[in-house]
C-alpha cells in the first residue's frame, strides 16, 4: 500500500517516470501503411502496387455494416437492450444497451476482479433493478474501505465515461503505466494533465477524502 501511495503521489506531482508517461497510450496507432513495409512483402511488387491502386480507387467514406453473427467481441451490432436479472429479487429489468445495459455487462467483470484491488471494494448492482433500485441513482454502487483508515465510502458508476475509467483501478501495482487498451484513450498521447487526472481518479476511489488530503493525494486537476 505504501508503494501505491508513493507512486500516486509522484504522479500527482507530475513527476511520473518517463517510461510510464510514454506508455499511457500503450496502444499506439499502427504505423501509416505508406510508411511501413508490407508485412508479408511478395516478390511481385508491381502486382501488389496495382492492387493498392485499385483499392485506393475504391476508397470512399467508410461505412459500418452492422451484423449479427457468432462473434465474440466488441460487437459490430450490440443489442438494443439488455435484460438485467436482479440477484436480490430475481426480477428482470429491461435496460437500454446504450446506457445502463452496457453498464450492467460490467457487473460480472467487476465481481471477478475486485479482489485484485489493493483495497477492499464491495459491489451492489441492485440500483440497476427497477424494483430494488427504486429511489437510488441507477448504476453500480461500489463501497470502498479506505486503503489508509478503513473508513467506508460509497460511489456510483452510472455513465459510460465512468465505466471506461474503472479499468484504471486495475492496473498492476506499483503503477508504472496506464494501459490505453486496443483503441487507445485518445489522440493526445502522453498528456501529463491526463496522467494527473487519472492518478487523482485512482486515489479518489481507493482512499477517503480525509486520507487523500493527509497523504497529499489530491492534485490540481479534477
Amino acid at each position, binding site marked *: 500500500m505504501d508503494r501505491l501511495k508513493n507512486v500516486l503521489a509522484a504522479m500527482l506531482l507530475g513527476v511520473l517516470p518517463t517510461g510510464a508517461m510514454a506508455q499511457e497510450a500503450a*496502444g499506439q496507432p499502427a504505423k501509416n501503411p505508406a510508411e511501413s513495409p508490407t508485412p508479408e512483402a511478395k516478390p511481385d511488387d508491381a502486382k501488389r502496387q496495382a492492387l493498392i491502386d485499385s483499392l485506393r480507387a475504391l476508397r470512399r467514406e*467508410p461505412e459500418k*455494416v*452492422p*451484423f449479427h453473427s457468432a462473434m465474440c467481441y466488441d460487437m459490430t451490432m450490440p443489442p438494443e437492450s439488455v435484460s438485467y436479472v436482479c440477484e436480490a429479487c430475481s426480477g428482470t429489468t429491461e435496460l437500454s444497451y446504450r446506457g445502463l445495459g452496457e453498464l450492467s455487462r460490467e457487473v460480472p467483470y467487476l465481481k471477478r476482479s475486485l479482489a485484485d484491488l489493493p483495497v477492499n471494494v464491495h459491489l451492489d448492482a441492485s440500483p440497476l433493478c427497477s424494483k430494488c433500485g427504486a429511489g437510488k441513482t441507477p448504476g453500480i454502487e461500489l463501497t470502498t474501505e479506505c486503503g489508509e483508515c478503513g473508513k467506508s465510502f460509497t460511489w456510483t458508476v452510472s455513465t459510460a465515461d465512468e465505466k471506461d475509467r474503472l479499468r484504471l483501478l486495475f492496473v498492476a501495482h506499483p503503477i508504472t503505466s496506464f494501459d490505453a487498451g486496443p483503441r487507445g484513450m485518445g489522440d493526445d498521447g502522453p498528456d501529463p494533465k491526463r496522467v494527473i487526472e487519472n492518478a487523482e481518479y485512482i486515489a479518489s476511489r481507493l482512499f477517503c477524502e480525509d486520507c487523500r488530503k493527509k497523504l497529499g493525494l489530491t492534485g490540481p486537476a479534477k
Partner: protein
Amino acid sequence: MIPSVPRTAVLELTFRCNHRCVFCSVPWDNPDGRYERQPELSASDWITCIDTLVGHGVTGFALSGGEPFLKEGFDDIVRHLRRVRVRKPVFGPSGTLLGQEEAPPYVTLITNGGLVTPERVESVRELLGAVVVSLPGLDTYAEHTGGGDREKALAALRAFDVAGVPTVVGICVTQRNLPELFETIATGFLNGGRQLLLNRFLPGGRGTGRQDLCLDRSQLSQMLRTAETVCLEAGRYGSIGTELPRCLVEERYDRLTVGTRCAGGVDFFAIDPAGRVRPCNHSPVHLGVWHDLPAAISTPYWQRFQTKNFLPSSCRGCGHTLTCDAGCREAAHIASGSLDAPDPLLLQV
C-alpha cells in the same frame, strides 16, 4: 431465477455442406466423433423454434450451417422470418422503458457462396441485414475448402452487393493463407465486400489437432497489421471475430475492431441442426434443446459464460481482467480440456 437469454441466435440449419473446409469449427465434424449427428430439425421445426425464441426475447438471427442454402425448406424458413415480428423495448431519452414495439428481426446469412444464384439472392434480399461470404484465401482457396471454387465466392459477393445487401468478407486466417492475406482481403473488397470479418484459426471441429494451421503471436500481429493496412487503403472497416488476449494486442487500430471480451452465451448462442443449444458455435458440448432454452442457460457450464467465471489461473491478478477474457474460452477447452485453460495462443512459447 429466469436466466438472461442472449438476443442473437445462430441457427445452424443443416449438417450438410458443399465444402470441406479444413478450419471448420462445427463440433459434429470433429474427427473424434463425440458430437453425434442426430436427425435434423425440419423447416417446420425451425419455424416453431424461431417463434419460441422470439418469445424468449431473441431479436436477431444468423443463418448458418453447414451451408444454409442446402437446408431443405430454406425458402420456407426465409418466408417465415420475413413475416416474424420481434418485440423491442422502447426507451425514453433518459433510458426509461416506455413500452415495446414490434419490428422485423435482424437477419444475417453466413454462406460460402458456392450455391448462390440470382434467384437465391432475390429470395433473401429483402430479409437480410447483412451477408457474410467466406473467402479463406485465393491461391489456397481450394486447399482450404476441400476443392471449392473461389470464383463462386467472389461472384456471390458481387451478386449480393449489386442486390443492395450489405456484404462482409469472412476470412479464417491460417498459417497457410496468411501470406496471401493482403491479396485476399483486397480481392474481397474489389468484388463488392463492404466490410471485413477476420477469424484466426482455432482448434475445433474438423480443424481439431491441426496445430500446423494455428497462427503464432508474430503471425497474429502480421494478420492484424495486414488487415488494418488493406482497410485503410480501401476505406473499409473490419473486425476480428474471435476475442484476443489483451496482452497480445500491442497496437491501436483505426479500422479494425479488436475485441478482448467473449460474447458467447451472453450476446449470442448457437442451435445445431438437430436443435441442441450451445453457448457458442465453437462449444464442443450441447446443453439442452431449443424448446427448453432457459434450462440450458441455467446449467453451470453456460453460467460460467454469463458470470465470466472462466479465467485461467495464470491470468489472475493481471491488470486486464476487467476488460479481457483471456482469448477464446472454447478454443482453450478444445485444446486443453477445460474452459479455464489458457488460449492456444498463450500456450505457445
